[in-house]
């Protein structure tokens, strides 16, 4: 690691001003991506700003049909919560036990890794990302490969999820890293069906063609014959774009079957 100054601010204002003051700042939440990157010397921030000292950033609360999860809430805590079972299942499948003990919701989505699990839920569940500046609709949050709607210095503080009538998350893990080769969250809210896909493209997205087919007929069979456009899908030594597109269909069917 290169040298940097470590800060652990105790207020949101202090955190954002540290970032503004820094020559090049980096927020640290769980550190599951940032610390390995620093160790490889693939980033050289002048200042690392640890968000774990900020008050009120951690925990899960329910208000009516809204589940609010603090940005610093560890994956393990979400996995153990029964507020939204599909979300708990998703969180329980992230990385490994140690990653879940350290990694956070806010850190995961702010990073917008194309293969992270949480983004599937952000786009599939009617969610609102709350930040140091203001709310961002979950559907608008991911804008590109490792890119989000967050502005310079903006900090995710919590995410509100609307509790769906039913939802399920199906993941096809990368055999080596256990990131999602493809992850699909299917959620039903009344007549609406949302299909959030992660791992397949440069960022998480909703598969609208699948949603339309499932809105008309919520059954695994409805997925057959829906073409998944793989033109901008990721490809690596583990899975081609074509295979990823195929998995989107398979996992969607499985999620639908589990919802019943």
């Amino acid at each position, binding site marked *: 690691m290169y040298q940097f100054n470590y800060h652990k601010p105790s207020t949101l204002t202090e955190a954002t001003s540290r970032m503004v003051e820094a020559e*090049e700042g*980096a927020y640290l939440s769980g550190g599951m*991506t*940032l610390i390995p*990157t620093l160790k*490889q*010397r*693939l*980033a*050289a*921030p002048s200042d690392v700003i640890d968000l774990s000292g900020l008050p009120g950033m951690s925990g899960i609360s329910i208000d009516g049909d809204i589940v609010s999860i603090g940005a610093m809430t560890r994956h393990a805590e979400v996995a153990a919560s029964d507020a939204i079972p599909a979300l708990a299942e998703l969180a329980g499948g992230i990385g490994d036990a140690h990653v879940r003990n350290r990694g956070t919701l806010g850190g995961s989505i702010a*990073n*917008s*890794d*194309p*293969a992270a699990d949480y983004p599937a839920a952000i786009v599939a569940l009617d969610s609102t990302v709350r930040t140091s500046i203001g709310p961002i609709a979950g559907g608008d949050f991911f804008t*590109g*490969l*490792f890119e989000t709607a967050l502005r310079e210095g903006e900090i995710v503080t919590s995410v509100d999820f609307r509790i769906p009538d039913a939802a399920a998350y199906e993941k096809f893990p*990368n055999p080596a*890293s256990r990131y999602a080769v493809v992850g699909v969250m299917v959620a039903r809210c009344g007549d609406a069906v949302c299909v959030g896909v992660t791992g397949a493209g*440069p960022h998480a997205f909703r598969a609208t063609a699948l949603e339309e087919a499932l809105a008309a007929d919520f059954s695994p069979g409805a997925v057959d014959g829906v073409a998944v456009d793989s033109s*901008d899908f*990721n*490809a*690596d*030594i*583990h899975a081609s774009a074509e295979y990823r597109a195929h998995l989107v269909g398979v996992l969607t069917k499985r999620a639908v079957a589990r919802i019943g």
Partner: protein
Amino acid sequence: MEQSGEYRIAGPRMRVWEALNDPAVLVRCIDGCRSMTPVGDDRFEAVVAARVGPVKATFNAAIALCDVEPPERYRLEVQVKGGVAGFAKGTALVELEEVTTEETLLKYQITGGIGGKLAQIGSRLVESAARKLTASFFERFAVDFAA
């Protein structure tokens, strides 16, 4: 890694060509490009701060224009030394077709690769990242040109 594509740009071919040869335009259109300095005939040195997620590195790039046939085509050879991160290299064949006097079709074919630590630990991201950089360049170029 190979990519190709085309963009329609509202403008006469000669003007598009000139823009594509203008370091000031290129600096604006290459994501993270901090400077581009001519170092000889059709040769430039650029400093680019590249960022892919948590990975941030500043690269020195040597750029050479080859087989220049104004205003139809050139080949851009880019060699990037990224220090500890490794290196990147690429060739872009850029061709301009006159659609009308006021519209130009820009076609590109890119081949490239990366090496060192970036390839070793980031192979899953190479394709997507390259696609993103390319798209970003031509989109910015189209916008910049229109402006």
